[in-house]
């Protein structure tokens, strides 16, 4: 009896909290499907309208939203694939091979994670400028290609999942270094790789500061920068268009997340619990 009342109390706290957390999403959907006049009417409309198609049409008619969407896809996919590949290979080698200097090198890698890198914006920006990388996607892809967090996480996963005996068997069959990685390590690392891929993709998709700093041409903008610009130019005149764009930019990640829920949430905890 006591525990049932207890459970009821828990839901009495959790349900309103969950509703509060869901509300901004709901409101985004309401505004993206409304007319401007609905939003500025009093009392405001509280349920979704039917204007989403016309809002999207006005959006794609006034700015190159699809272009920004495509840019985001290209940059995020490239950056993510590169980061995951390097992290899986490096993490696997750190976990399964022994070579001089391995442990100090790994300690250095861990140490760099605590370095506040966001404070060196200007010199990093100047390096991009000197390399001729401004207004290209290289600053968004190359410097982040080797992620200390990713290597750490893949090393943990490899220690748990890759079997030394299987590696040895492959080696006896004549498999070289890369072949062992490809045929033995990668299949065993699949769940960890899936989680890290989605996590990294979300991170790349939402990246804002560097695209804002290095991309000048409007046709090169990624989604977050395009959204911010759109909000600045249309925010006061055509709110539903801004909201439709925001909704469209948000949906892919929500769908991706719902598909890979488990892997993403376990990736999020990788550093916190096992470290």
């Amino acid at each position, binding site marked *: 009896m006591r525990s049932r009342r207890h459970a009821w109390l828990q839901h009495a706290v959790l349900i309103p909290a969950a509703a509060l957390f869901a509300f901004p999403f709901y409101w985004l959907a309401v505004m993206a499907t409304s007319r401007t006049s609905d939003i500025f009417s009093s009392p405001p409309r509280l349920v979704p309208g039917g204007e989403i198609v016309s809002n999207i049409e006005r959006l794609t008619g006034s700015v190159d939203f699809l272009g920004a969407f495509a840019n985001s896809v290209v940059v995020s996919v490239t950056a993510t694939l590169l980061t995951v590949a390097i992290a899986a290979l490096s993490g696997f080698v750190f976990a399964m091979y022994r070579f001089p200097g391995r442990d100090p090198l790994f300690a250095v890698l861990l140490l*760099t994670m*605590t370095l506040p890198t966001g*404070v*060196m914006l200007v010199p990093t920006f100047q390096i991009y400028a000197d390399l001729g990388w401004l207004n290209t996607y290289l600053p968004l892809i190359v410097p982040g290609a080797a992620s200390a967090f990713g290597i750490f996480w893949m090393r943990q996963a490899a220690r748990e999942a890759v079997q030394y005996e299987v590696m040895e068997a492959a080696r006896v069959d004549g498999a070289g270094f890369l072949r062992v990685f490809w045929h033995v390590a990668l299949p065993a690392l699949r769940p960890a790789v899936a989680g890290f891929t989605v996590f990294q993709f979300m991170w790349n998709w939402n990246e804002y500061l560097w695209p804002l700093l290095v991309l000048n041409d409007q046709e090169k903008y990624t989604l977050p920068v395009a959204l911010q610009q759109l909000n*600045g130019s249309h925010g006061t005149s055509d709110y539903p268009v801004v909201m439709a764009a925001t909704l469209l930019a948000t949906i892919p990640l929500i769908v991706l997340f719902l598909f890979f829920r488990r892997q993403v949430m376990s990736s999020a905890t990788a550093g916190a619990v096992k470290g």
Partner: protein
Amino acid sequence: MPRRTARPAVPTTRRRADQPALRRYWREYLAISPFYVLFAVFGLFPLVFALYLSTVSWDGLGEPDQVGLDQFTRLVSSGEFLDALGNTVIIFLIAQVPVILAALGAAALLSSPRLKGRGIYQTLFFLPQVTSIVAVAIVFQSLFSNEFGIINTLLEAVGLGAVPWMTTAWGVRLVVALMIFWRGFGYFVVIFLAGIASIPPTLYEAARLDGAGPWRILRSITVPMIWPTVLFVAVTGTISGFQIFTEPQVLTNGLGGPDGSVVTLMFLQVGYMGTTLPTVAPDLGFATTIGWGVFVVLVLLALFNSRVINGRRKEMS
């Protein structure tokens, strides 16, 4: 973490023992090299370059002027840096600290053994984490809009009167704090839940048999048992909290809010790079010096954190 050190390393068949290490293990070194190469170029080198840049005054277009240590004098004597530090600390205190505490409480609640729908709650709380901060800022801007925002409409409907969120210093700070809370909560909940899941359930049963209430259990069992997780969250939460940029920047359309009330340290630094904040004239030297200021603040915080941690460890042992 189970260590399997007993497992033999892959033997070096076909590799001769008398070869130098670099030649014998070139595959291994090559496989781990990308991180070190990229870190040297985009991590270490900028750090050294930043020493030079902080001694110049430069608008980024003409020739840099050598100014010696003037930028550092300017950093400590001009009110701008201290104001930005103050804004950062205020936002940290009203956003990052509450969100971590609330997430700990929610995780304790969500981890009760017979709770139904845990996965649904967890997913709902985590969802804001996967949305871009820019999108979140745009939505919050409209929720808290002074005239047509739904929050003010609701406040008026219940007779409380509209609040000038976006045009008062504390209003904007509060909205920034709510954004940080809303977006970060689920992430911390998931991390704390994973920590709590590793606590043996028998500990809780024993405590309950001894008549301990929920608060007592949280304080005496949950928090001490997940202390490493709490530390991780405290340290990473502090580092990211003190580098808050996107939330205030997008929320205020790059302007920094009334009286620059949400111009944080990173916001000020980016402002001096000439991309946002119309109130400041670009000076890359001063921007770099602000970067050093942030660096020093974070190092001091790390030292403070480790002192607290050591004190706590002594207290527990």
